[in-house]
């Protein structure tokens, strides 16, 4: 239906992102256990699972907030286990958050410009001196910020405070800011949360578009099944920190294990 070829198992060796046997424990609680997952270059891959399955923890491991006790995370051929989040971002991984994390007090443009910072070349001490190369770069950043804002339909609200935007716009702004870091891989944590069906639909097209336009690979966590099924080429299903199923949207939809995880034992029987 989406026109994508449904891949079979992803190619572990050539994947852009590869989590291998990742285990993350907090005290006695194992939030993610021996999880292996691959995201091929250029794909849109989803991670789904009931609440508390460890999806966000997985994202926090991938983006460097937590160092897993066991296993390894390989991004673009390099192990990023134990690296700091800013370092991982520099390598080309960007993410958004389930609970939006914008600078509420800053304008739309300023928020996006912060994202541009990681790729800048002039050091800070050039700012007070006002050297030409610095001024040029500053102008470039502002231009790029404006373009990205237009790309997510926030071109008219450039100088509005981020905190005053409606929820959906804040989500788009967060994506724009992530794009400003010029990522190769974009992690989206529940991008459709709190959106109405119309907005979710637009989001689906938007995700697919930015993938093509910015030559991205996208990994997303999502609760909205329509979005997941509509946009993802491959889906991993988590429950209690472990993978319970994987496959294309159709295969996952009809997988009895997945249905049981989502609906519970009784409902699954009825469903079947």
């Amino acid at each position, binding site marked *: 239906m989406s026109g994508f070829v449904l891949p079979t198992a992803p190619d572990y060796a050539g994947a852009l992102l590869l989590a291998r046997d990742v285990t993350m424990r907090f005290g006695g609680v194992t939030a993610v256990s021996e999880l292996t997952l691959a995201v091929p270059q250029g794909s849109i891959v989803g991670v789904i699972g009931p609440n508390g399955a460890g999806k*966000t923890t997985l994202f926090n491991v991938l983006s460097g*907030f937590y160092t897993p006790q066991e296993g390894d995370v390989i991004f673009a051929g390099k192990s990023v286990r134990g690296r700091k989040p800013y370092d991982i971002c520099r390598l080309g991984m960007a993410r958004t958050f389930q609970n939006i994390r914008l600078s509420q007090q800053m304008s739309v443009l300023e928020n996006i410009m912060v994202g541009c910072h990681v790729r800048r070349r002039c050091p800070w001490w050039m700012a007070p001196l006002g050297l030409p190369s610095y001024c040029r770069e500053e102008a470039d950043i502002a231009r790029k910020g404006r373009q990205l804002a237009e790309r997510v339909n926030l071109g008219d609200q450039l100088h509005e405070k981020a905190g005053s935007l409606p929820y959906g716009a804040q989500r788009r702004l967060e994506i724009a800011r992530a794009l400003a870091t010029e990522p190769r891989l974009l992690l989206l944590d529940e991008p459709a949360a709190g959106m109405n069906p119309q907005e979710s639909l637009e989001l689906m097209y938007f995700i697919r578009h930015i993938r093509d336009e910015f030559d991205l690979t996208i990994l997303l966590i999502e609760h909205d099944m329509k979005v997941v099924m509509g946009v993802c080429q491959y889906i991993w299903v988590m429950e209690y920190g472990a993978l319970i199923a994987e496959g294309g949207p159709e295969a996952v939809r009809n997988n009895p294990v997945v249905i049981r995880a989502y609906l519970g034992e009784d409902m699954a029987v009825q469903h079947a």
Partner: protein
Amino acid sequence: MSLDMFLQHCFNALTLGSLYALIAIGYTMVYGILRLINFAHGDILMVGAYFVFFGTFAFGWPWGIAAIMAIAGASLLGVVMERVAYRPLRDAPRISALISAIAVSFFIESLAVVVFTGQPRPVLQPEWLVSEWQVWGGVRILRLTAFVPAMTAVLVGILLYIVYRTKPGLAMRAISKDIETTRLLGVRVDNIIAFTFCIGSALAAASGIMWALRYPQVHPYMGIMPGLKAFIAAVFGGIGSIQGAVIGGVALGFVEIMTVAFMPELSGYRDAFAFVLLVLVLLFKPTGLLGERMEEKI
């Protein structure tokens, strides 16, 4: 150093540590509930000491009466302070409340300068407390030196009873875990917080009175250093934990007295020890000895 000398130092350290501990309890209780460093807490100590000074000196009250009046007065001041300067800021960013606390602290200090003048005033010590007492062999201490830890132990005992065996104590512990849920359960949160300030201030005043007996002088800025150091003691013990505050206070007393006792050449740096200790604690065990770990959710 002879054994007698060492024991004498131990007693002194225990006395100083007890004083710190009593102040630290107030910090730790308020921080545990409101996540606020009550900067003006040290000044409550000063106010308590002044009340006792005026009670005994100006009105000629006996010591016991003056002390009780002073503790009552300081508790009232603590409650008023919370009502005026902290309650309106409960939903504001935490730093606003801290700045408010700093302002209150300066207000109390400068008001004390205006009312009591900036001159230090000598405190009359009651005879029976300053007489010497032969503990054992050559170890001779002032009765005061034994009185302070004993009094502290009694007060801490009462406090632990209130916190762990009474209803308001239960409410206090609940608020420190989750203020909103506690409110939903029908606890009058504002009253309990006021009560917490009342207890904390009473203990600070008790410490202030004993401080004025130990170092027989009162002046408007006498509360600043003990206050800061007691806060450090609270952090060292693990902020939010009453037992931790007691341990931290006594430990700080020992660190200060013993470092100077064994290395007299460092006595000029005495006031810096506490801060060095603070930095070390924050670096290596930010939760202190008994504190609970609080992590930000990502």
